[in-house]
C-alpha cells in the first residue's frame, strides 16, 4: 500500500471550480430562475456553504477519517458518521469515547443521549444539532472534538498531534500555504473538516429526476406515495420541504423515547421557551433509507414504524405531564395500509449517494481507518 498522501486538485462531484480555484456547488436546482425559496418541484436551493478549495476539502477527508483526532486515538468522526450508514451511525443513540466498531455492534464506549444525524446536505443548514444549539459548522465541530463522551480531545492535544505529524504539516502547507514555522491551529483543522462535510451533497435521487421532468423516474406506487407525502392530509412536505426535505426549522412532534430513556427537553433549554419543550430540528429525509433507526434517540426502528407513528393519533407518544404543544401540522391522517406502503416506497426513492467521497485506505497518522463494511464493524 502506498502511503504517499497527496491532495486532490479537483473539486468533488457536484462542485465546479471557479476562477479563484474554489469549489462552487452546482445543482440543476440552481438553474431554476424562480425567486429563491422552498417547496414544490422546481425551486432554487437556499444558500449553501461552499467556496472551499479542492485541497482543503481533500485534507478534511483525511481528518474526518483519522482517529488521531480522538482523545482515545480510536474515535474518528466517521465512527459516528459512517459512509455505510448514510453518514449517520446506524445506532439509536451514539457511542463515543473508547468504543470499538461501528453501528449496532459498536461497544465499550461512552454512551450519548442522542443519535448521530446524517451529514448529507449539512452545507444547507444554518443551525445544527437536534436542538439547534450551534449556528455554524465551525461551532458545531467543537462539540464532538472536545466533549468527553465523544472524541474527548483537547485543543492543545489536538494541535500537538497534528503539528507533530510530518504528513499533516506537508498537507496543511499545501492546502493553506503555511509559513515555515506557522503552527496549525484548531480553527484551521476545523475549517478543513467543514470543507469536507460541506461537500457531502445528495441531490440526484430518482425523486430529483422526477422533479426535473422525467415523469417515469418514480414508479406508479412511488408517485402515489409522493402525493401522500405532499398532501395536506399528512403534511409531511410542510416540514420536510423539498428540495432539501427539511424546512430548516424546529418542530414539536412528540416522538417517543426508547424504553427506559428520560424525556428529552429538546430546544427548550437552548432558547429558552416553554413552547419549544420537546422541539427538535426537522431532519432531512434524503438518504433516509440508509439511516435507521429514526428520531433523535432512535426510538423508531424502521420507516414502517415512523409512518405508523405519524398515522396514529397526534401526540399519542408524548408524555402527558410534559404538556407539549404539538405542531399544528401534525394531524390524524387516517392513512390506509396501502397508503402507508406507498409513502414508504416514496421515502426510499430519496436515496442518492453518487457523490459519496472515496474512503481513504489509510490516514496520515497511520492509525486504522474505520472499517467500511458494516459486517466487519468490530475491526476498529
Amino acid at each position, binding site marked *: 500500500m502506498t502511503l504517499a498522501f497527496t491532495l486532490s486538485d479537483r*473539486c468533488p*462531484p*457536484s*462542485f*465546479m471550480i*471557479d476562477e479563484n480555484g474554489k469549489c*462552487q*456547488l*452546482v*445543482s*440543476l436546482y*440552481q*438553474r*431554476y*430562475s*424562480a*425567486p429563491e*425559496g*422552498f*417547496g*414544490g*418541484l*422546481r*425551486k432554487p436551493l437556499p*444558500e*449553501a456553504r461552499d467556496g472551499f478549495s479542492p485541497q482543503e476539502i481533500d485534507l478534511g477527508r483525511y481528518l474526518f477519517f483519522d482517529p488521531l483526532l480522538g482523545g482515545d486515538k480510536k474515535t474518528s468522526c466517521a465512527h459516528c458518521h459512517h459512509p455505510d450508514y448514510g453518514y449517520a451511525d446506524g445506532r439509536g443513540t451514539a457511542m463515543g469515547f473508547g468504543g470499538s466498531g461501528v453501528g449496532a455492534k459498536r461497544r465499550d464506549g461512552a454512551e450519548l443521549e442522542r443519535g448521530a444525524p446524517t451529514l448529507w446536505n449539512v452545507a444547507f443548514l444554518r443551525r445544527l444539532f437536534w436542538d439547534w444549539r450551534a449556528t455554524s459548522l465551525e461551532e458545531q465541530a467543537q462539540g464532538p472534538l472536545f466533549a468527553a463522551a465523544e472524541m474527548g480531545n483537547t485543543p492543545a492535544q489536538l494541535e500537538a498531534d497534528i503539528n507533530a505529524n510530518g504528513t499533516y504539516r506537508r498537507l496543511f502547507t499545501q492546502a493553506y500555504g503555511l509559513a515555515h514555522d506557522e503552527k496549525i491551529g484548531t480553527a484551521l483543522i476545523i475549517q478543513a473538516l467543514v470543507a469536507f462535510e460541506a461537500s457531502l451533497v445528495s441531490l*440526484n435521487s430518482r425523486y*430529483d*429526476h*422526477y*422533479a*426535473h*421532468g*422525467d*415523469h417515469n*423516474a418514480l414508479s406508479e406506487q412511488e*408517485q402515489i406515495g409522493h*402525493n*401522500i407525502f*405532499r*398532501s*395536506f*392530509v399528512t403534511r409531511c*412536505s410542510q416540514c420536510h*420541504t423539498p428540495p432539501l426535505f427539511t*424546512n*430548516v*426549522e424546529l418542530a414539536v412532534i412528540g416522538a417517543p423515547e426508547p424504553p427506559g430513556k428520560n424525556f428529552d427537553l429538546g430546544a427548550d433549554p437552548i432558547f429558552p*421557551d416553554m*413552547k419549544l419543550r420537546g*422541539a427538535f430540528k426537522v431532519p432531512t429525509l434524503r438518504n433516509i433509507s440508509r439511516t435507521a433507526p429514526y428520531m433523535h434517540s432512535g426510538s423508531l426502528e424502521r420507516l414502517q414504524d415512523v409512518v405508523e407513528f405519524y398515522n396514529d393519533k397526534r401526540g399519542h407518544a408524548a408524555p402527558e405531564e410534559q404538556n407539549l*404543544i*404539538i*405542531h*399544528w*401540522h*401534525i394531524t390524524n391522517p*387516517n392513512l390506509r395500509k396501502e397508503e402507508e406502503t406507498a409513502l414508504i416506497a416514496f421515502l426510499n426513492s430519496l436515496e442518492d449517494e*453518487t*457523490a459519496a467521497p472515496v474512503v481513504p485506505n489509510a490516514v496520515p497518522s497511520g492509525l486504522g481507518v474505520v472499517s467500511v463494511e458494516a459486517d466487519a464493524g468490530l475491526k476498529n
Partner: protein
Amino acid sequence: MRKRIFALVVALSALISSTCVFSATQSKVITVREGASIQAAVKLANPGDTIEVYPGLYKETVYIDKNDITIRGVVVAGEWPVMDGEDTLNDGILVAGHGVTVDRFFIRRFKGNGIMTQGANNYKIINNIVEGDSVYGIFPQFSNNGLVADNVIWNVHDAAIYLGMCENADVVRNDTFGSVMGIEIENSKNILVENNTAHDNSSGIQVTLLQGLPVKTASNTIVRRNFISNNNVPNFAPRGSAAAGTPAGTGIVIFAADDTVVEGNIITGNDSAAIVMVDHDSSPNVRDPEMDPTPDNAKIYDNVYWNNGTKPLGAAKDVLEQAGLKEGFEVMLVTKSKGSCIANPSSVRVFGADQFTACPDGATSAGITTMQLSEPIAENLEQTEYNGRFAYKAICAGCHIYEGRMVGPPMRVIQALYMDRPEAMAQWIANPTHKRDDYPEMPPQNYLSEEDRLAIANYILNDLGKSRQLRQSRE
C-alpha cells in the same frame, strides 16, 4: 455563492449566440368524458396542451407536475364535471408545474385540499366551486405570480382560500362562506384581495405572519372593496390545528403582518369587531426569533362599518373585560404597532386609538390595480453551452471521472467511443442500454432536455480533460 457563477453565465451568454430550438409540435386538446381518468389525460399531456373534462363524476386525485397545462371543465347545460373525494381521497387537484390553469371544476369532499399548488409559478385558479370538507379549499403555496378569481368555496375547516408563502397574486371576485376563515394570506408579499365576499365564516379575511415557517416576513397585502359580513360562526377547526385559535366574530384580522392596506370594504355584522390587529403573543405558537412579532405600518383607509362589535366573543371579549369595557369596537388594536394610520379617525370607534395617526387626506391604494407581474416568471435561466460543464459536474461527475473507474467507465474511454458524435451520446444517455457486464446499468438521464444532453456531450467530447492534457504535455 451561486450568485457569482451566474454572473458568469450571463456574461458568457452575451458572447455565445443562442442555439435554442423551439419545438414545432402543436399544442393539443385532450378530451375526458365520464368513466375515463383525468390523470390518464395529464400523463398524455405535454406543455401547452389543454385537457377538457366533460360533466360527470370523477373520483380521483389529479396531480400536474408538468408545465403549461390547462385543465378545464366543460359545463354542459348546467352540468359540471364533479371531482368527489368521498371523504377518503386526500386532495382534489395538486399542481407543481409552472403555468398551470385550473378552470371550472366542482370539487367536493376531499380530506386534504380542494386545489393546491406547491412551488408552481404563473398559476391561475378560476371559476371553480369547492365544497369542503377539506382543510383548505384553494391553497397556492410557495407559488409566485398567480390569479385566484371567481371561485365559490364553502364548508372548509380552515380557510376557504389560503395563500401560503406566495408573492404577487390577485385574489379577486371569490365568494367564501361557511368556513372557519374566508380568505387568509399567510407569510406572503404583494397580494391584492379585492371584490370578494367573505360571509358567515368564523372570521372573514386574515393577513398573517405565522411563526416557525421558512418565510420570515409578511408584507404589502391590499384588502380592498370586499364585502365582509356576519362572520360569527363558532370556530369549528379541529383541536390543535392552526385555525383553532382564530377568534370568531371578526371581519378582518391582521396578525403580525406588515404594510397591510384595508380600503373600501363594506364590513358589517361581525360580532367581535370589524378589524382586529394582534401580535405573536396572542397565539399559542412559539415566538420565532427571526420574525418581527407585531403588525406595523397598517393603513386603514375609508371603509364602511356597520353593526360590528355588538357582542364581542372569546379573545376580544376577554381583552375588553380586562380593560373594564363592555361595548365592542369597530377597530381593535390589541398590540403595539409602529407607523399605522387610520383615515378619518373621529368617524371610527377604535380600541388602542392612541397608536394610530390619521392617514393623510385622500391617501389611497387606487393606483395599484394588480399585483400580478407583467411578465410570467421564466422557468430556467438562460441556456448556454456553459451549461454543459455545469450539468456534467452537477450530475455525471458523481459516477464518472476522466481517468479511472468509478460507478461508470472513465470518460477518456467514452470520449474515444463517441468521437465527433455528440448527438449519439446525447441520445444514448436518455435511454441507456446495458452494455458492460462488469458495470451496472446507467440510470436514464431523460429528465434533461435535449439541448442539455447535447451540451453535456459537447462538453465531454470537446473540453473534458483538456486542461489536464495541456498540463501533461508541458511537463
